[in-house]
């Protein structure tokens, strides 16, 4: 099995999986019907992406595991998503702030992945990028709205951005598999995306009359499977059926 490629794909897919799951939690509990429908659309897009990636990963693994086995039957330490996406939905500001901080990265990442020499991955990126462009637009609009809304909303989104900021640096870390994939022309050199990421995010925060956090300390570990305490609970929901009723079809 092409282990590096497999791990590289999981790294991408797990972000969508965990973020999709977080967004899905909100279905039926949004601040308005319209927003509820929009957030569910994002969740659906992300799960769609997850399926494409995991179906490909399953093929590469070639050991009979399915997309669901890969999505739902790994141990906590085997999930490779960044810490940012597993952070909980504390309120709408956290949800949209998290989405925004991820979307800006995600969009830049996919536009590079489109150039991958791996044709399956570039095709997936090609399809996903349209969805993610919309996510980025949607979450940016909301950050702008909340920042430039009422005092209360300004405070709330500022607080969310401040808290989530510490998880942004990890987006640009590379695992062993990532590096190997860059060398083969398959992967994306995320270190090169960092500068424009912070510039773009900074610009929008400014537009939203928000302050750019000045944190020097960043959390990391997700990509290596060392997560925050939040992930375990998310996984116990995600995996509940597969764990309780092993080896069944649904």
């Amino acid at each position, binding site marked *: 099995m092409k282990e590096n490629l497999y791990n590289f794909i999981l790294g991408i897919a797990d972000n969508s999986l965990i973020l999709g799951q977080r967004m899905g939690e909100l279905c039926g509990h949004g601040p*308005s*019907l*319209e*927003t509820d*429908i*929009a957030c569910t659309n994002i969740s659906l897009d992300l799960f769609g992406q997850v399926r494409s990636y995991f179906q490909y990963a399953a093929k590469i693994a070639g050991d009979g595991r399915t997309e669901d086995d890969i999505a739902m039957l790994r141990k906590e330490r085997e999930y490779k998503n960044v810490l940012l996406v597993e952070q909980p939905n504390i309120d709408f500001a956290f949800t949209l702030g998290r989405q925004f901080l991820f979307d800006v990265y995600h969009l830049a990442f996919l536009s590079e992945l489109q150039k991958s020499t791996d044709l399956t991955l570039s095709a997936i990126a090609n399809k996903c990028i349209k969805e993610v462009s*919309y996510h980025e637009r949607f979450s940016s*609009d909301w950050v702008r*709205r909340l920042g430039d809304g009422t005092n209360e909303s300004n405070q709330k989104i500022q607080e969310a951005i401040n808290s989530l900021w510490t998880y942004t640096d990890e987006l640009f870390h590379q695992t062993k598999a990532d590096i190997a994939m860059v060398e083969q022309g398959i992967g994306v050199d995320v270190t090169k995306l960092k500068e424009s990421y912070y510039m773009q995010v900074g610009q929008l925060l400014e537009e939203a009359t928000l302050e750019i956090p000045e944190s020097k300390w960043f959390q990391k570990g997700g990509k290596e499977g060392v997560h925050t305490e939040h992930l375990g609970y998310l996984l116990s929901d995600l995996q509940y059926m597969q764990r309780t009723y092993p080896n069944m079809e649904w």
Partner: protein
Amino acid sequence: MSTKNWPLWEIFVRSKNGLEHRHCGSLHAADADMALENARDVYTRRSEGVSIWVVESKNITASNPENNGELFEPAHDKVYRHPTFYDLPDEVKHM
């Protein structure tokens, strides 16, 4: 607080190029940009559209059905506006 609720918008969707925009329903949004985004998420979930118009409902002026008589009935007897009003010899097949 919540003194002001999101206003109502009327949504028009063009299902494909070559066809007109058609009214498909309404929704609430704080402003036009949001109305467009919401319309995209609410009314084109199943690929129903290629273009969207949004108009705040309060900006639509509608005719009053009580005036339907004077507005629309006078057109009923103007049969000369329709091709069937005119006699053609049978020999002329298409005109």
